[in-house]
């Protein structure tokens, strides 16, 4: 019914990490909105799936959380990257670029696979 793609399994974590890196400490709602905006509203993110993903990243030590006040003075939980999270983001970003580059080669018009 809807032309928007679902979030692929496994890429949500990478998007979350990248968003937190880009935005600094940010609450869950902010992350969700940001991911939707960045994708140019092409991604349909079920906000409910975001929270277990955040919890998983926190359990793995990639992010840390802290309660704070939102821009309009609401209590909200803010997430930020830990040092391990930064490292992990760098590594996963590299891997992602590599993977997409390889896949992209297959779609170069007239190009032969290496």
């Amino acid at each position, binding site marked *: 019914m809807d032309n928007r793609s679902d979030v692929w399994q496994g890429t949500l974590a990478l998007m979350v990490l990248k968003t937190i890196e880009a935005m600094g400490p940010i*609450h*869950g*709602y*902010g992350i*969700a909105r940001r991911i939707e905006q960045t994708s140019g509203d092409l991604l349909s993110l*079920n*906000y*409910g*799936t975001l*929270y*277990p993903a955040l*919890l*998983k990243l926190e*359990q*793995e*030590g*990639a992010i840390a959380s802290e309660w704070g006040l*939102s821009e*309009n003075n*609401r*209590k*909200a*939980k803010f997430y930020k990257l830990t040092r391990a999270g930064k490292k*992990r983001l760098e590594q996963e970003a590299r891997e992602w670029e590599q993977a997409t580059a390889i896949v992209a080669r297959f779609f170069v018009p007239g190009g032969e696979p290496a």
Partner: protein
Amino acid sequence: MRHLRSWWQRIRGIGRDSSREQEMMDEIESHIQLQAEEYERAGMDPTEARRRAILKLGGAEHTRQAYRERDTLPLLENFLQDLRFSFRQLGKNPGFTATAVLMLALGFAASIALFAFVDAALLKPLPYHQPERLAAVYESAAVFAHSNLSYPDYLDWKRMNNVFQSLDAWQGNGWLLKTAGGVEPVRGIRVTDGFFRTLGVVPLLGRDFHQGEDLPSGPRTVMLSYSTWQHRFGGRSDVIGQAVSLGGVPFTAVGVLPKDFTFAPRGDAEFWTPFHAESECDLRRSCHGMYGVARLKDGVTIAQAESEMKSIAAELARQYPGSNRGQGAALLSLSEAIVGDLRPILLVLLAGAGLLLLIACVNVSSLLLVRAESRRREMAVRGALGASPLRLVRQFLTEGITLVTIGAALGLCAALGVMQALLRLIPKQMMMSMPFLNNLGLNLHIVFFTMAIAVLMTALFAATPLVRMPLHALHDGLAEGGRGAAGTLWRRLGSNLVIAELAIAMVLLAGAGLLGKSLYRLLHVDLGFEPNQLAAMTISGSDVAYGKSPDAIRLDRELVDRLNSLAAVESAALTSNLPVSFNGNTDWLRFEGKPYHGEHNESLERDISPGYFKTLGAKLLSGRPFTPDDNTNHPKVAIINKTLARKYFPGEDPVGKRVGNLDLKPDSMKTIVGVVDDFREGPLDEEIWPAIYYPLYQSPDNYVQAVVRTRGSAEDMLPELTAAVRAIDRDLGVTDQTTMSLRIHESPTAYMHRSAAWMVGGFAVLAALLGAIGLYGVIAYSVGQRTREIGVRMALGAQRGTIYGLVLKEAGRLTVIGVVAGLACSIAVLSLMGKLLFQVKAWDMPTLAGVSLLLGVAALVASYVPAHRAASVNPVEALRAE
């Protein structure tokens, strides 16, 4: 690493307090508010904004659930929940719980304890290097499947074979050890040089015997067992090189054996000396006294080795027809040789324990069924409230695990106690020959065994209630209110379980009955002599003092005279072997004037002093007994037993006939002067062999057995008898003082039969008890279900007697089917007990009838209680209750 961390966090999440839950709710709430505010800013009214926000989130509760599941391990969390619930359930029903746990613990304890024995004795009996490559090597003869080797044969076998990496031999002996407190008889073993290398045993201290050290020219050296080193030499390392006086001769101690080294065939051997073949017997090819032990070459099987040894034996028989005719070869794996005799009894006992465990399982299963019945509504309600079928199955599984775990833990503890108790019941003498039982105790095998049983049992118990709980029809439970037809299936299933229980109990009872009867028959077997008021002891004088024939005769005469002179002694005599010992120590006979084709007429040979038959109470059938004049100054004489007379002198009077060795050498010829009635030289459960008796004064020995008929109690006389012997020479060794009755009672044969009878008897009693409880459970349940029916019947005029009949008929039907099925199984199963049954057949009618009656009475008593309750039903109340 990262996964590990995350798992750890999740495990910590289990049972986390409510502040955590609150924090999660807060976060989601704040998310909803942030979203709703945004919608409001876009112009939505607040209620609609909030509704849309929740929609966008994908449902508040749904999100919380996903969050929660990520926070902990749902499976484990549920399990803990189930566990708490099952503890509560079990706690609510202490009667059920205690009964079930007790029965399981009983079953576990019995089977774990027996498994421990089987494990120690059958699975890892030999503390040697690669024990599966070790073989016991024997000669074989017409009457002995496994007999000893002679030293010359051993040397030829060693030289000619291509199947053994090494072949060595040993022979038990005894020494008189000089100690600070005087002379003490001790046990030893003579071994050929490579004996310990063949076993793969390296001395703890000092050195092994060198090659060639066992030749007569070799030095007199000795190796000590570990406990001897500890107890007699204070565990000092300077014992190496010290002189040890054995039989008045100094031996140099060269080595100490490791602590965990044991040699079961002679578990109490203290001193190990090189073989040094010197005696007449050592050098004679027809004197068989050694046991062979060999390490097989890689890839050679016992069967291959045996066939090669047989062909070598055949070659030797051609070469030395006089001594080796008919002497074959036989091999057993060393473990078979050591624990082979133990196997049938242990397996029978393990089977008995297994059956007991089975009954306990069946009983608990039927208890679980009754409970499942009463929990149909609970399950239906839980199902209706949304518990998935899987979740309900898990609940039963958890309850099964809880019951079994508690039962197994209690059973394991009890089993450890039972093992120690059983070990203490084994006589010291028997224990010596089973050193592998010394490290009986908790080990990994036992833990795995327990766990394996526990897993099987848990599966069974989890499955049992499900039989009664077709999960797809849960709502029936709600609708029906749990009465009426619900009971029928259970009654049918429960009845079948009880029949199985009674049948198993029947098998055990029949087994116990037959073993008990065997034991009785064994202990009342005709001995041919009078064992009461008869004392026995072993007396040895050193070779230095009494090794020569005239000295030995002087000693033997002195012993007979001194013992006979005691006031409380009616008569005393000496023999080379006590009765009820073993069928061995044979002589090869040839009878003058009888056709002879080179066969070895094998016959037990005993050297006895005058008065021996009179002392035993054995009956002389014809001729005369030996007199003190039958000595080296007079012609050689012999007395034979009835079996020998019947076999070789059928229809003739043997008195006056002459018998000699296979060549009828003049100096071997003896005149038969008497025939004695058969009495039991060998074990209680073996045939009586032909036996020939020679006068001790014509073939004297410095190692003899005394039998003393006392006027009063033989046991009380033992110290006085010992003192009397010591008074002759304080350097004489006196050991094994006992009474003949005790000897017979504690002989290995009697011991084996007795322990089997008692243990299977114990299992049987427990099994009958459990079976009766099971029957009681089924009948009581059925009466409970039929209370209304009984009320109606009574209201319509049924008498109490009719009600009794109604209930007892049901119980009787189950009992009869159970007993009959049990009888059929008994006959099939018990025929397998083979050697454990003595003069009793598996289909022994009186025994089977007796135990059937016993079980029937037990069943009647068990069903009388519910029958009585049924007959006491007050019809008015029974009807009103509906």
